[in-house]
């Protein structure tokens, strides 16, 4: 009796848990597309409880970025830089408004980003990749600076070419004042020699698009934090009548003349933007500048239409396979086959419940993992049933044969599942992308299938014997 009790209670507990864990997903499936879109916009808490589908199943973009450590400031550790870049990219994507993005560090200098359901990966990539290094530099118009500019023109190289490799042009470097360098401008109005950065975008508190200027074109207005505001006030006071260049990603956006001290920590960036450019710039300025440029080294984009077609086929065929197996088990083992089938279906339900509860992502290889799990679960039941058959042939009564069958096969099933589980755990540890998706469903599935194939089926037999419903037993 006691034995039945723990089996019964743990089964009931698991079933209750499964219904509870899958409830949000069921609700979600019954919602209309509009309601889904609305929930995503409002960041409805239900989103955190719904079973997650991988990008290969529902469409979206997967990006792997590499932080270009060669362009990193010498005294910044690459680890910190990658951490900071990850944070900044997270902020930018949040502002872009993607439902449930995934952003994480991978390895030493990689950042993995998953944007489910995104329709325009190009502008997302632009937003993510923008370095947005904003600097304020005083324009240097001294004689040395002009000499350096002349040298540059004589050599016929661009400021970019010089900055990339200053040691190749020692005479220019010598001519330049301490800390200064040469930049080109967005307007194509020639080159500037600029002193070292007086202030950077790091001291910004806000940036927004405004429609001002002479012709009502978009401009970006910025606000500095307290120290930034004070520094800005100092700079403008000391450099009245000189030009202050606003440099974004090493390109001079504008270089207005300072007419008077600006005390309130506010400034505007004019740069002949269109509205979209200005919005993007304001967004990246608000979220902060990347410590170093990032490069896309892997991209996988799946359009939603592809998802639909091949996925329907994939799921359909898997379902057909499972149904045929259920029929086969019934034809071959009759009542016992039905019991095994029941356990198999419960196995699937509990597996999906755990996937939803633990917020693991179901991918196409994950479906393959489920297929293998089900095969192992069927195998466990076949093992048990064949063993019971042996015991029956040895002349044992039904009840004794069932008990002996379960007892003798338990360790076989245990060993077989644990060995596969060991493999699955290492796959999870070292696997990337699809392999990981496979390992997740396989590991969870193995543990659950051991429970359903052994405990739940045995529980049903015990119940049938107890109620004397099963007197004659044939397999």
């Amino acid at each position, binding site marked *: 009796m006691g034995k039945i009790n723990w089996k019964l209670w743990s089964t009931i507990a698991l079933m209750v848990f499964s219904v509870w864990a899958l409830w949000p997903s069921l609700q979600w499936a019954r919602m209309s597309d509009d309601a889904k879109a609305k929930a995503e916009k409002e960041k409805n808490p239900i989103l955190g409880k719904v079973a997650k589908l991988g990008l290969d199943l529902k469409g979206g973009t997967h990006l*792997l970025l590499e932080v270009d450590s060669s362009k990193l400031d010498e005294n910044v550790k690459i680890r910190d830089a990658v951490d900071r870049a990850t944070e900044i990219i997270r902020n930018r994507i949040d502002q872009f408004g993607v439902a449930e993005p995934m952003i994480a560090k991978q390895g030493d200098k990689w950042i993995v980003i998953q944007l489910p359901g995104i329709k325009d*990966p190009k502008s997302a990539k632009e937003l993510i990749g923008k370095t947005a290094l904003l600097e304020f530099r005083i324009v240097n118009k001294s004689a040395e600076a002009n000499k350096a500019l002349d040298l540059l023109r004589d050599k016929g190289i661009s400021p970019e070419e010089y900055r990339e490799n200053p040691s190749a042009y020692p005479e220019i470097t010598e001519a330049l004042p301490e800390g200064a360098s040469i930049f080109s401008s967005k307007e194509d109005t020639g080159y500037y020699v600029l002193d070292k950065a007086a202030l950077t975008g790091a001291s910004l508190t806000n940036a927004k698009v405004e429609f001002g200027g002479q012709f009502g074109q978009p401009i970006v207005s910025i606000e500095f934090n307290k120290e930034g505001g004070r520094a800005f006030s100092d700079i403008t006071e000391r450099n009245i009548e000189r030009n202050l260049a606003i440099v974004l990603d090493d390109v001079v956006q504008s270089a207005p003349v300072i007419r008077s001290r600006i005390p309130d920590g506010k400034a505007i960036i004019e740069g002949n933007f269109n509205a979209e450019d200005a919005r993007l710039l304001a967004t990246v300025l608000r979220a902060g500048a990347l410590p170093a440029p990032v*490069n*896309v*080294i*892997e*991209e*996988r*984009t*799946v*359009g939603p*239409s*592809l998802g639909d*077609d*091949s996925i329907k*086929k*994939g799921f*359909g*065929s*898997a379902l*057909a*396979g*499972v149904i*045929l*197996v259920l029929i*086969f*088990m019934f*034809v071959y*083992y009759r009542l016992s086959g039905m019991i095994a089938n029941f356990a198999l279906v419960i196995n699937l339900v509990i597996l999906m419940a755990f996937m939803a509860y633990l917020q693991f992502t179901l991918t196409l*290889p994950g479906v*393959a993992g489920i*297929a*293998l799990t089900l*095969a*192992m679960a*069927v*195998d466990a039941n*076949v093992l048990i049933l064949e063993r019971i*058959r*042996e015991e029956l042939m040895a002349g044992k009564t039904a009840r004794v044969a069932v008990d002996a069958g379960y007892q*003798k096969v338990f360790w*076989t099933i245990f*060993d*077989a599942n*644990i*060995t*596969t589980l060991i*493999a*699955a*755990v*290492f*796959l999870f*540890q*070292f*696997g*990337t992308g*699809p*392999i990981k998706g*496979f390992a997740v469903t*396989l590991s969870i599935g193995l543990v659950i299938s051991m429970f359903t194939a052994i405990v739940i089926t045995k529980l049903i037999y015990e119940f049938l014997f107890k109620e004397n419903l099963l007197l004659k037993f044939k397999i």
Partner: protein
Amino acid sequence: MKFINSINIDFIGKRRTSFIISLVILAICVGAYIYRGGPNYGIDFTGGMLMQISFEENVGLQDVRTALEAGGIDSFELQTSEKLIMIRAKHNVESQEEFENKAKTALSEKFPGNAMTVDKVEYVGPSVGEYLSKQALYAFFFAFIGIIIYVAFRFKSTLWGVAGVIGIIHDVLISFGMVILVNKEIDLTVIAALLTIAGYSINDTIVLFDRMRENMRLSVKEDLATMINKSINAVLLRTVVTTVTVFIVSGCLFFLGGEVIHTFAYIMVVGTVLGVYSTIFLCSPLVYEWEMGRRKRLKAARQQGLVRGK
């Protein structure tokens, strides 16, 4: 219902034949490897670019090819089926953005009025390809070590663990060879399928080993060959039934699953047979050979009085 009644086949006695069969199949795989000039690795491992585009109307392979070449894309592989085209470029993709734009412009110019949708874009940088290959190898390697240790611990013999892993390697290698034979591309899905085979293979082996362990305990005096044969025959029915069910699933995936799962299902079908074959015809005869060798050495040592024991 029951397929077969009592069976008694002498598997161990035929071990020479089965070893030769394994070697012949392995030789075929090596032959396929040489004939095909190595595996056809996908961009997951070589790095490169893949675009899948679907049109509203059918397009011809040659038209697409000329359009892309005229658009400035060189050295690419092209596959078309009616409305669907797949462009692959390995190794030589300098700028992903540029490739995408060139392809899109070239195609929309060539086929105006035939609307196209980009279904899939995959870009894998060279360092990522290297990383993915390395991680896949690590995964296999550590999984093998883990299995050897666990089996050695549970069955109190390293030999059994090693025999089990040799079975896995045998099955995975041959499945891999069979993929090369039909010239399918090796991508991450293939790796996932090979892992499934590895899992299935060891599962099957453990079931048999477990029966062997049980029979060894029950009748210590029995001849090793008889014991192993008895165990194989005892679990044979179960093996047949399980294989049939796995076959049903893989068959459905193969015939109904569509292009994406096709290779996966193909490997499953091949691997299921291999998993059973290697358990019966490779792992258990290996255990027999090694166990006999060990006993012989032990006996010799005992005769020389080096080891004391019963």
